[in-house]
Structures are given as C-alpha cells and as structure tokens.
C-alpha cells in the first residue's frame, strides 16, 4: 500500500476510534439512568428521604438524600476505575500524574467540583423529583457550554458543520425539555427543584469538560479521570457528608445501612456504567475534540429514553420522541464531517 492510502486509512481509523469511544460513552451514560432512578426507591435512601422530609421538608430532604446517593455513586465509580487502571497497568502513571499537582492534576480536582456537586448531584435531584428521562434530556444542553468555553479558553476549532450539528442537538434538547414543562405548567404543579437539578447537570458537565481538557492535554485520560473521581470522593466524604452530619442530618446512620445486597448491587451497577461512560468520554476528546466528543456523547439522552422505556415501560411523550430524533440528526451532521477538517483540531 502506498503512503497516501496508508495516511488516509490511518486518519480515518483515528477519527472513527474517537467517535466509537464517544458512542460507547452515550450507551453507558444512558444505562446509568436506570440504577440512578431505581436507587431512590431502595432503602436506606427511601427511608432517609421520608425521615428528613418530616422534620425539614421535601426540598431539603431531597437535596440531602441526593448528596448521599451522589457520594456513593462517586465511591463506586472510583472503585470501578481503580480496577480499570489495574487492568491497564497504569498505577505507576497514576502516582506520577498525581504528584504533578500544579501543572496537571489540579485541573482534574477543579473539574471534579463542577462534575460532582454540580452536575451529578443535579442529575440525581432531577431523577428523584421528576424522573430519569427528564434528568437525561435536561443535561443535553451541556455541549453548548463546553464548546463555547473550549473555543474561548484554549482556542479549539469548531467547524461550521460541527456548529450546525450542535445547534440541532440543542433544539432537540429544548423540545424534550419544553414538552414536559408545558404539561406541568398546565397542571399547575412544577417541580422546580428538579428543573434546577437539570440545569445544574447541563452547566456542570459543560464546565467540567472544558476544565478537564486543560489537564488532559498533558495526561493520560484513564489516569486523569480516576484523579477526577478521587477529587469528587474527597469533596463528598471528607467535606460535604461530615458537614451535613455536624449540622444534624443522620448521614452516617443511613450511609451504613447502604451495605445491603440489593442496594449495593444497584450502586455498583451505577458505578460501572458511569465510570466507563467517563472513560469513553475522556478518551474521545483527544481524538475528535471536546466539542465533538460531547456532541456524540449526547446520544446518551436518546439511549436513556430507550432503556427507561424497555426496563420501566414508561412511554415517552411525543415531544421526547421529536427531540430525540433531532438529537440523532444533529449527531449525524457532526459524524459525517470530512476527515480532512479533523486533521488538526487546534490552531497553532
């Protein structure tokens, strides 16, 4: 085979690999909404919600319970990623990267602030108060924030075609988001705290992606990602959970009750799906760029709706179907981008 053909083949392979990682991210991310929704009706979280609601009201109870769920989610994700790094023989690299705090690992810790207490907590709030399908689609707006930040901050190019694709995906997200809201406005009962959670998810993930890119430039994704979850565990288990316990919420008594088989199984399922959705997400960024990685990863919204329909039998509204179709269309606009445009992703 001649040089030119080999070059073309290699570039194609690289780009399709990037898109493949992003698609795997979408599937894992979509599946995550199953354990994420189920965990709310399992003890101790179900009981915890009831106990705190009696004394502090529904809204406070929801947020505090969501904190404990998110903290456990972070824990199982970190465990899943530790296993992953063990398999890849990357513990040495993990230590080396951790030591480079100022140039590198601080970005992962910073990313964990936006990813954990903003995005993931927000998602659990949306799942608990409105439902999995909503939580999934509400966050669909995050690539706007991610792409714009990446563009202004480190000059990542967004081609016209990618911009159109992102725009169509966003229109899809708005359709899904708006559909539910209009129905609820009509019924007179809008679960605002759930919508706030949805917005937190979108903003948090968009910012996280852009910040993480700063550290990922010079680190290995598997390692960077694990450090990002180490950071999130520190935030939950060393800062927020103890503070809530000191303030008087029964955090520890319910935390210890989480060690029962079914709850543990669901939490581990959440950890594995979420851990690997992140692995795939981060792996796609260096190959196809943060904006595109996030755009294709966005198909998770549709995946979540399909999985929720299959497992819970919830039939989505027509706005969800229309919005989902727009998301697929937008992703494919980005997917069919000419390989040549992708050869250099950033300005020099």
């Amino acid at each position, binding site marked *: *085979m*001649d*040089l030119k053909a*080999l*070059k073309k083949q*290699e570039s194609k392979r*690289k780009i399709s690999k990037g898109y493949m990682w992003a698609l795997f991210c979408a599937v894992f991310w979509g599946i995550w909404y199953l354990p994420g929704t189920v965990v709310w009706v399992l003890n101790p979280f179900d009981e915890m919600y009831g106990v705190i609601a009696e004394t502090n009201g529904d809204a406070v109870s929801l947020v505090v319970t969501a904190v404990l769920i998110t903290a456990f989610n972070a824990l199982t994700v970190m465990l899943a990623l530790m296993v992953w790094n063990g398999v*890849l*023989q990357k513990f*040495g*690299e993990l230590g*080396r*990267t951790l030591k*480079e705090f*100022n*140039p*590198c690992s601080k970005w992962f810790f910073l990313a964990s602030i936006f990813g954990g207490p903003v995005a993931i907590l927000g998602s659990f709030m949306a799942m608990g108060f409105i439902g999995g399908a909503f939580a999934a689609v509400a966050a669909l707006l995050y690539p706007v924030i991610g792409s714009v930040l990446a563009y202004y901050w480190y000059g990542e190019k967004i081609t016209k075609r990618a911009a159109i694709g992102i725009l169509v995906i966003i229109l899809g997200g708005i359709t899904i988001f708006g559909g539910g809201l209009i129905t609820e406005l009509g019924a007179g009962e809008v679960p605002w705290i759930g919508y706030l959670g949805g917005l937190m998810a979108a903003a948090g993930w968009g910012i996280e992606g852009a910040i993480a890119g700063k550290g*990922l*430039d*010079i*680190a*290995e*994704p598997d*390692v960077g990602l694990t450090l990002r979850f180490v950071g999130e565990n520190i935030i939950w288990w060393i800062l927020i959970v103890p503070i809530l316990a000191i303030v008087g919420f029964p955090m520890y008594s319910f935390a210890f009750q989480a060690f029962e088989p079914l709850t543990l199984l669901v939490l581990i399922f959440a950890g594995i799906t979420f851990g690997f959705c992140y692995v795939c997400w981060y792996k796609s960024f*260096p*190959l196809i760029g943060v904006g595109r990685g996030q755009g294709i990863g966005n198909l998770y919204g549709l995946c979540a709706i399909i999985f929720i329909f299959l497992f819970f039998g919830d039939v989505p509204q027509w706005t969800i179907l229309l919005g989902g179709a727009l998301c697929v269309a937008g992703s494919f606009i980005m997917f069919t981008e000419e390989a040549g445009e992708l050869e*250099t*992703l*950033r*300005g*020099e």
Partner: protein
Amino acid sequence: MGNRPLKFRILELYLDEKEHWNYEIVSKIMEEYGMKGDYHRDSINFDIIELASGGMLKDVEQKVDEEGIYKKGFLLHKYVITDFGKVRGSDACLRYV
C-alpha cells in the same frame, strides 16, 4: 527510571525543537520507564498521537515501515513540537532546552 508523567517526558524530549520519529521516542520512553512488550509500545505511541491531535506536536513526515522497525506495514510518523506544545511544555515546568 522516569518519574514524571509519560506525556510530560514525551514533550520534554521534543522540546529540543528537533524532529523525532515516533519509534525513536517510544523506545526511549520504554527504556527510561522500564517498560516491555507490545501493549506498552502501543500505549506510548497513543500518547504521542494524543499530543499531536491536541496540537502540541506536528506530524511533519510519514513513511511506510517496510522493514518492520516498529510495526511492519504501518505508518511511521515524524513529529516536531509546535508553539502551543512549547507553551504547554513550559506550563508543565519542563526544562526548556
């Protein structure tokens, strides 16, 4: 034995502003970090690819690996550091040679 993250070291090797073939860098890193086998070889090469697609290295020349010095029938790449790579390299507190 190398004690900085792999990508830091790869950038550092390119900071001499000379062009280096990927197989030269890969074998140097493997030697420095005491790594053996195809898995690590491909993993380090992927780090170089990531640095290049991140705009820190520029792919300046390619040739087909006819003799199998790296991977027979595959492309060999020659890279040089970019201005962005130099900036990121010095952000990472690397020695600027």
